[in-house]
């Protein structure tokens, strides 16, 4: 059973992985807005590699030496991806590479723009510390 279905499953997972990985690449290259670009790889890419990891896991069962390792890597990727995305988004916000976001309803500003007093004086551009959209 495993001998016949297994490779097929592996192949399917690989194909899914391949497609998603490709989409991640295309998205990264094609999309022209920096915040929009963020969407493609952080999700699609993760799923793409996830599918390949699944393929690898199934493949190990096919070969007869079971492996669960891949789950760990998958979990790892999935847990860290949002944090990476969050940091990159913060970078884009900080560098003003996107439309200015609306102000938060309850607090003064977004945390990226909430620059502590002692950090506001840098060498060249003082006004940079304040969000220019506001």
């Amino acid at each position, binding site marked *: 059973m495993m001998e016949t279905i297994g490779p097929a499953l592996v192949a399917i997972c690989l194909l899914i992985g391949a497609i998603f990985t490709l989409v991640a690449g295309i998205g990264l290259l094609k999309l022209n807005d920096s915040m929009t670009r963020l969407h493609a790889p952080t999700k699609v890419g993760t799923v793409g590699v996830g599918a390949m990891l699944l393929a690898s896991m199934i493949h190990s069962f096919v070969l007869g030496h079971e492996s669960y390792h891949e789950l760990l890597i998958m979990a790892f990727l999935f847990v860290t991806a949002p944090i990476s995305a*969050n*940091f990159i988004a913060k970078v884009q*916000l900080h560098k003003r590479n996107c439309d200015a976001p609306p102000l938060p309803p309850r607090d003064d500003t977004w945390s990226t723009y*909430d*620059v502590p007093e*002692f*950090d506001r004086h*840098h060498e060249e551009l003082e006004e940079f510390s304040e969000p220019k959209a506001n």
Partner: protein
Amino acid sequence: MSLFLLVALPFLGALLPGLMNSAGRQACAGVTFTVTLAAFIGLLTNLPAVWAGEVVTARALWLPELGLNFTLMLDGLGFFFAFLILGIGLLIIAYGRAYLSRDDNMGEFFTYLLLFQGAMVGIVMSDNILLLLVFWELTSLSSFLLIGYWKHLPEGRQGARMALTVTGMGGLAMIGGMLILGQIAGSYDLSVILQNRELIQESPLYLPALILILLGCFTKSAQFPFHFWLPHAMAAPTPVSAYLHSATMVKAGIFLMARLWPVLSGTPEWFMIVTTAGLITMVLGAVIALFKHDLKALLAFSTVSHLGLITMLLGTGTAFGVLAAMFHILNHAMFKAALFMSAGIVDHEAKTRDIRLLGGLRKLMPITFVIATLAALSMAGIPFLNGFLSKEMMLKEADYTVLYGTPWLVAGLATLGSLFSAAYCFRFISHTFLGEVRDDYPAKPHDPPSGMWLPPAILVSLVVIIGCAPFLAEPTIYKVTEAVLAGVKETPDYHFKLWHGLVPALFMSMIAVVGGFLLLMVFKPLLKTWENTPRPEAKVIFEALIEAIASLARTTTHGLHNGAFSRYGAVFSVAVIGASYYAWTTGTLSSPTRKMQTAEPVMWAGWLMLVAATGALVFFHRNRLLALVLIGIVGLMVSVGFVFFSAPDLAMTQLTVEVVTIILLLLALNFLPNRTPKESSVLLRTRDGIIAVAGGLAATAMAYHFLLRDAVATPISEFHLANSYKGGGGTNVVNVILVDFRGFDTFGEIIVLGIAALLIYALTETLLNSSVRAKLLNRKPDQPRAGDMHPTMMVVLTRVMMPVVLLVGFYIFLRGHNEPGGGFISGLVVSIAVVMQYMASGFNWTTSRLRYPYHGVIGAGVLIAGLTGIGSWFVAKPFLTSDFTYVRIPPFQEFELATAALFDLGVFLAVVGAVMLSLESFSRLAYRPGAEQSDHPMDIDPSRDDPPPLPPKAGRVSTEGA
């Protein structure tokens, strides 16, 4: 007295004046005199043997294999010179005691003097030409110290350096000459060399040896064109001048020419070179001396002239010449020492040596007048004084000598020299002592205390005695001459007497004296002409030459080592590429032994990525952050390549190291500029590009070459593969090599890491204790900063991830011996886990909660690794001998216990400690006082603004379960 003691006495004695310095000036001079006297008496004890024609010897081995031994000999020649050196030395010491002023450091002076004396005695007693060289150079060095004794006077320093430079040059040339001479003769022992006249003179190396040795002699004895240093040595205190010029230093060259006379002389080369140099020196020295106004300068050039005379006599190559030379050496030593001392007395008393300010001293200092006049007349060649005798012999020899096929040349020039010689002697007497007493002397002169006039008086009485009774000196000079000739030539049949009949020499002598007198008559117009004649000033030329050389050296040195690392790098690359190219092209090449493996598409893709990233890195290297990202990609692709080519351990190490490196570089970049300015010109970049491409091609060629060929024999790794499990207890062969087969490498490696961390820590401390600290504290960020230092999401994730990563690190550590992993990677992984915590909640918050003594961790790591190695000593095995066993404790599966794991633990600890200490140090640099140190792990935590769900300390006390 043993010759060893004789030579050693002055050197050993040289220690005393310095030590006695505090005991007073009298003690200082006394001890010096005593030492010299002892040596002098010691010398005399050898007189009977030497007189009997024996050669007294003493040998001790020093460097037998090289042929440099402490072999001394004392024959007639040596005795003669040693007698002069020590005898006149005694007088000089007595004179010097009276001469030196209270401000002069007497201990220092007499130390140098004794050193010099010892060196001179050594020269004349050496039976080994290499040993002679040693003493030879020692005279240069000690005379350097003597001449420069008055350090505050620029003339002293310049004169000393000039003397050292010129005589040093000669000495070095002589090293070459002596080595060649010894090589020809097959021995460096004089006694052997002197037996090999034919061998030496027929050797093709004779001429180079001769020239090099003569360079030494001429420079030392101030022969033209090296005569110029001697007058400048006058800057020394007068006792030194008297000593150097009469009996010692300058006679060394003469001595050596005499010493080697049997083997070197008699060839046309010798004759031409030596005689010519001597003649020119004699005349030139005499002419210049006439026009010198400084008494000592006048005497100095007279010395030059007389040395030329002696040289000329040795150059003729006849036995009579030698005889005359030896006699003149004796005579010259006496009158010249006396003259210098007299000049010194005048200087000491009248406070000037300028002959133009003097005159009429006859009445004020009659004793000095008598002494100086007798000595000067002897030098002028006036009968009944010893100078007359030897000068006449010289003229006789000159008369017989034919140079350049011109019979009258030597005779004419010799007469001319004598004429000028007589003239300056007369000038010396008349312009100093005769005439009216003046009233404008810088000081009122009178005769000095007996301590100063007695020594010259003794000498002058000898001058007169020999002058009147020449037969007294005859046996001695004959003994000496015999010793010089060494059987090569017959000793001449000639007797020292005042009257030889109306021989040509007598007429020449008369011409000289009368001519000298006439010359003095017309001195004033002559001086005017002399002063208006443009002539090369040797000192100026020499100094310009030295300055030019020094300036060239400066330019070369600083032009070459201009501090430009970029150029050093280029030179390095070119040198390596060039040498490799040479090695390649001179080797042989046959066809490959391995087949090229096909490259799959994925390989191509990887290659493309790597090349693209590398290219982009070069292209964008000025944008530092981008460059950092790109180098990360290069590293990533290299790691993937390692995985592809079956090296998982390598890939993991590469990756972890790279991330830590990037973190370090980012930490550094925080302080450094973010962009590199464009500075190098297109030309420079082209040059660098060409070098780089050449280097790349070389590396490619070499790698390609080896990749397609097998090693000449089975690689030793076969053994490692075969014995990894059996002998090392692990299946990951790479790890077994690291912790067992080549554990010593790994031991060194962790020490490197440990040192790196200590260094970084130490430098941080140093920087923070320096002015840099203020600079750092006042630093303004060079880019706008965002808010939210410790983002909430990151902190929360880290709380979960950090323990997981630690677990992974532990896992990798345990696995290392059998699967990819090990202490090193594990250490880096654990470090990265801690770094995550640092990045999330900040350095201060993190360390304030858990401060690891990273120093201790490093130390412990190295100690554990080392002690594991030492542990094997207790079972009588070498360092790092491993052992392992398999253990089973339920419910766990059987597992392995290996000493290698303990070693790996050391590695782990050292790595963690090193990485963390380094990061910590960087963070300490970045500390800014303005930044408020949060008490919270994250900046934004809405749970804080609500009423806390549990009492503050509930974390520990609450009884509620989760």
